């Protein structure tokens, strides 16, 4: 390798690392503030005492435990709904022929562009009409039939060899039996990928829950954090930073542990 090449490589390494530092800086700053007493919030002293007091204060100042429970319930409900609804629909699109199939599929795909996130006003009116405003169900319902999930699972089901299905029918499997015993097990990696993507997307979702919830019993973590940092707290950045990290922590920790699975899932399932 020539000297020019080597120095070019060194410059690239330094550049990449500078970008990396720049990228981690805002998060590192928040962590610094959260783990130190307020007096050190913006003073950088390596000997500054570490403390968990900010986390304790944040935890006691707002019902984050309840918010965590709500988020968990919402995410679980959405995931269960998506798995059920999308699996059934994807199977119909992958293996059946019926009149109007391609039109219906095109209508489903429309949702890739027109997501429920955009139709907030009308969807709120629907929830109001159903008497569901300020319930966990209202947060979850619009996301259960996901065009993306249907599309992804349909693609996967189409790769399953027909012979397997025929063999299962000969063995006496019903339609749903074939789906459950043949298709679902073979599509397991896709379910895992889609599940991870769905959970991380809805764990972080904000605008729709903000609109449709207005009490502690239904609010997810994201909305709880926004309410907490805008009204209850004034500008105590140490406590707000602690609350922020606390909100992000479950997903962040899961990501750090299962990094490979996360990245693979995002690659496989793209978004939503």
């Amino acid at each position, binding site marked *: 390798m020539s000297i020019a090449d080597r120095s070019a490589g060194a410059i690239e390494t330094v550049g990449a690392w500078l970008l990396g530092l720049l990228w*981690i*800086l805002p*998060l590192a700053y928040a962590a610094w*503030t959260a783990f130190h007493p307020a007096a050190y919030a913006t003073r950088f002293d390596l000997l500054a005492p570490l403390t968990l007091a900010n986390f304790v204060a944040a935890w006691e100042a707002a019902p984050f435990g309840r918010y965590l429970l709500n988020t968990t319930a919402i995410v679980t409900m959405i995931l269960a709904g998506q798995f059920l609804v*999308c699996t059934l629909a994807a199977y119909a699109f992958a293996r059946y022929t019926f009149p109007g199939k391609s039109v219906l599929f095109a209508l*489903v795909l429309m949702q890739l562009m027109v997501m429920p996130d955009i139709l907030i*006003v009308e969807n709120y009116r629907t929830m109001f009409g159903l008497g569901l405003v300020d319930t966990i169900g209202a947060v979850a319902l619009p996301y259960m039939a996901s065009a993306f999930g249907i599309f992804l699972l349909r693609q996967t089901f189409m790769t399953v060899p027909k012979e397997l299905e025929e063999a299962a029918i000969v063995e006496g499997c019903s339609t749903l039996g074939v789906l459950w015993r043949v298709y679902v097990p073979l599509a397991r990696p896709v379910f895992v990928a889609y599940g991870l993507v769905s959970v991380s997307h809805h764990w972080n979702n904000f605008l729709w829950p903000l609109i449709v919830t207005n009490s502690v019993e239904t609010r997810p973590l*994201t909305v709880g954090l926004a309410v907490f940092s805008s009204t209850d707290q004034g500008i105590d950045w140490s406590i707000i930073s602690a609350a922020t990290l606390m909100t*992000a922590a479950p*997903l962040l920790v899961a990501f750090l542990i299962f990094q490979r699975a996360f990245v693979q899932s995002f690659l496989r399932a793209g978004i939503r």
Partner: protein
Amino acid sequence: MSRLRASIHASLLLLPAVVLLAAFTHVPAVRTFIGALYTTPRGNRPEVFIGLDNYRHLLDDPVFWQAMANNVWYAALTIPLSVILALVMALAVDARLPGRAALRMAYFTPTVLPMIAVANIWLFFYTPGYGLLDQVLGLFGVAQTNWLGSRDTALNAVIAVAVWKEAGFFMIFYLAALQTIPHDLREAAAIEGASRFTFFRRVTLPLLMPTTLFVLVNAVIGAFRLVDHIVVMTRGGPDNATALLLYYIYEIGFRFWDSAYAATLTTVLLAILAVLAAVQFLFLERRIHYR
């Protein structure tokens, strides 16, 4: 299995999805178009058909035009910046750098944070005088700046947040694509005496085109549908300088409870997305697919 039975089975399988999709996507979309032609019912005054009056009002609404201009600027900066940075990051992490696993994590981590947490972190980062940005710039003698409170800087400050959050996400798609480029291509190019830059421009970049398309489509959708950070950081201010279209819809719909005008604005947003979808299918798809 008879055709009739197959049709019945299929419709039963599709029933839940069709009901839910219709209830929360198609029916509301149609009701949005219709609602835009009426007044907002208030108190005991029922809604009245007014034809295109809402659209006339829209054309005269300076805040709407401001939100459109903001959104175009937001998209025009966020999309290329995050896509180019994503490519740079992917190239960096794909090369055999020391500590590249840590580097990849640093790039990717913002992606798994909720946008609300990201907004809080940056709100603090931007705090005038007190936040890290002003402290660092202070070392170089730059005066205090109210990044989010000034009309001149607020929108760009919000754009920086979006780029920070999204670039790492797009990076993984580029990284995956880079790893599929066969090694012999690089060797062949080296034998031909091609410089690294030529190789990048003539081989790598064209091979990455399908990925770029995928990333671009997602970036464009994101620029029009993600406004969480606006709600937390600026509430569209100062003086509507950071109002994006969806945020304006939210404000009209849920602060002023003017559902008819919100429907009119939503129709505009739907039209924009429809045009984007058409461009994607008719134009880009055909030009970029090599495989």
